[in-house]
């Protein structure tokens, strides 16, 4: 009789003590919600997968390479290529503009500007990152689109029309317009992350180059930039991931054309824009096809984000505290 009690008594006491102290409760509570983040993320992938199973089965890999998207009940054919193409083209156009601009600005902010000015400008640039996507779309529709249609498009066609990338028709909306909007939306990220990567370069590296007779530009371009390379590439990847998944602003200026065009002045479609426009009225096959597109988009952005974060962690020392 006595012996089982003697064994259980201390254990009970320990548990109640631990509960009274509250550490165990707090631990369980916080780990529960932390686990929730993990589960939800896994669940998102699972749901997307399950919901798109019908098209995964029906079209297989030909879905990715298919060029025809026809939801008419008599056709019901779905191919993802025009949207993957549009997503990639608009994002690449965006990066071609925002990377030189963003890295250049970051160089100014970390290497040249007075600390105070640098902080103020960085603050303003980070405000740009806070502007909602739909606002960019609104502005683009009424400013960039007419400019593109009446001036920039014809200008580009006149001088670069001999290449396949700048040919009529010119609508104002299209790949290039969407790319420009995305460029404005991505460079705040590129600037602020690149600036931090540049500022993490030890002062001695700059001085070593300068002491050998390098000009400030040579020291920056040949020594400081390569030193911060990984962090800068990471910032570019972050920008790219944002551009790929960006929905509203692009939906408003991409032109909604389900065919592939070589000319950047022509209209196109991105994955996110297509889903935004068609999902609410989608039929039984179209719906899963759209969700499968989301899955494709999800995988693309995941890979890029994972790569970006890895690189940023490798360059900025305070690894765990860095987002």
């Amino acid at each position, binding site marked *: 009789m006595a012996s089982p009690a003697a064994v259980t008594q201390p254990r009970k006491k320990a548990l109640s003590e631990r509960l009274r102290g509250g550490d165990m409760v707090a631990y369980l509570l916080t780990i529960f919600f932390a*686990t929730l983040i993990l589960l939800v993320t896994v669940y*998102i992938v699972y749901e997307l997968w399950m919901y798109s199973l019908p098209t995964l089965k029906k079209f297989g890999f030909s879905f990715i390479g298919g060029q025809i998207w026809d939801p008419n009940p008599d056709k019901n054919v779905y191919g993802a290529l025009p949207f993957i193409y549009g997503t990639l083209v608009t994002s690449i156009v965006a990066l071609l503009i925002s990377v030189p601009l963003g890295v*250049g600005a970051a160089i100014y902010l970390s290497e040249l500007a007075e600390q105070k000015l640098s902080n103020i400008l960085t603050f303003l640039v980070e405000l740009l990152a806070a*502007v909602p996507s739909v606002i960019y779309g609104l502005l683009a529709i009424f400013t960039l689109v007419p400019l593109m249609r009446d001036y920039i498009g014809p200008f580009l066609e006149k001088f670069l029309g001999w290449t396949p990338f700048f040919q009529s028709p010119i609508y104002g909306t299209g790949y290039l317009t969407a790319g420009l909007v995305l460029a404005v939306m991505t460079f705040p990220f590129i600037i602020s992350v690149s600036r931090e990567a540049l500022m993490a370069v030890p002062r001695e590296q700059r001085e070593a180059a300068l002491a050998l007779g390098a000009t400030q530009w040579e020291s920056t371009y040949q020594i400081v930039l390569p030193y911060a390379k990984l962090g800068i590439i990471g910032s570019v990847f972050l920008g790219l991931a944002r551009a790929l*998944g960006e929905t509203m602003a692009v939906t408003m200026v991409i032109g909604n054309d389900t065919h592939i065009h070589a000319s950047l002045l022509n209209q196109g479609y991105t994955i996110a824009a297509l889903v*935004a426009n068609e999902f609410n009225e989608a039929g039984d096959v179209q719906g899963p096809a759209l969700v499968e597109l989301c899955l494709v988009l999800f995988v693309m952005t995941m890979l890029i984000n994972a790569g970006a974060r890895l690189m940023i962690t490798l360059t900025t020392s305070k690894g765990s505290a860095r987002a």
Partner: protein
Amino acid sequence: MTFRNKRRTAVNNVMLSLTGVFAFLTVTILILILGYLVYNGVTSLNVAFFTKLPVGPGQAGGGIANAIIGSVLVVAVASLFGLPIGFLSGVYLAEFGAGTKFAYVVRYTADLLNGVPSIVIGIFAWTVVVKPMHHYSAFAGSIALSLMLIPITARSTEQFLLEVPRAMREGALALGASKWKAIATVIVPAARKGILTGMILGVARISGESAPLLFTALGNQYWCRGLMDQTSTLPVMIYKLATSPYDDWHQQAWAAGLILLGLVLIANITARVVLTRGASVPKG
């Protein structure tokens, strides 16, 4: 000076000036955006705009009151879920789970979740809330937005908790406080400004999101009758007004855009300047 050095100096001057031009160009874009929005939006602002329901194209008057109320409702409910969950997860990451493999996995997952395109979050919320319930609702929109808010809050909470000096933690523990008591009474209060900043920025961010609401809160011509009713929200309303073919709706889009941007920027500026004096915030 030799020709070679003259050339090097010239390249140096040109390139360095160019970086300055780029930096000011980006800031100019911000100022242009703000200026253009104010210029176009301010004329359409009046009391009715804040108090009336939308009217059809061609009709005078009307407002976006239902969208404002809808946004407040959707964002408030999303914050109700997102902020506590995110906060507690952040406490786990910085304190209870510090240094563990599991915390590392959760941290990485939170970053991935933060990077999931918002439209995908919208689709997910549709499959788990709208589809089983068979109707669109403000609630579904809140779920979608809270999924975006959780990782943001978790990571910013973690970051600011980690900045609390070690001496302060050890001081509390040395007095015999249990771990959670030290966290609740010393560590979290020490980081409260930062944590609050992270939360405000997170809420500001989701307030501007429209993509996750397209298939969840949907939209509504009239007042939203409750959490389970579909509702209009500011961002989605702007999208619909801007993409319509009507001039008077475009005017309303400008005014609504001005309100939305104003709210978002005020929240950002307040949080950063007043609370943390320009402290760096998590990115991405």
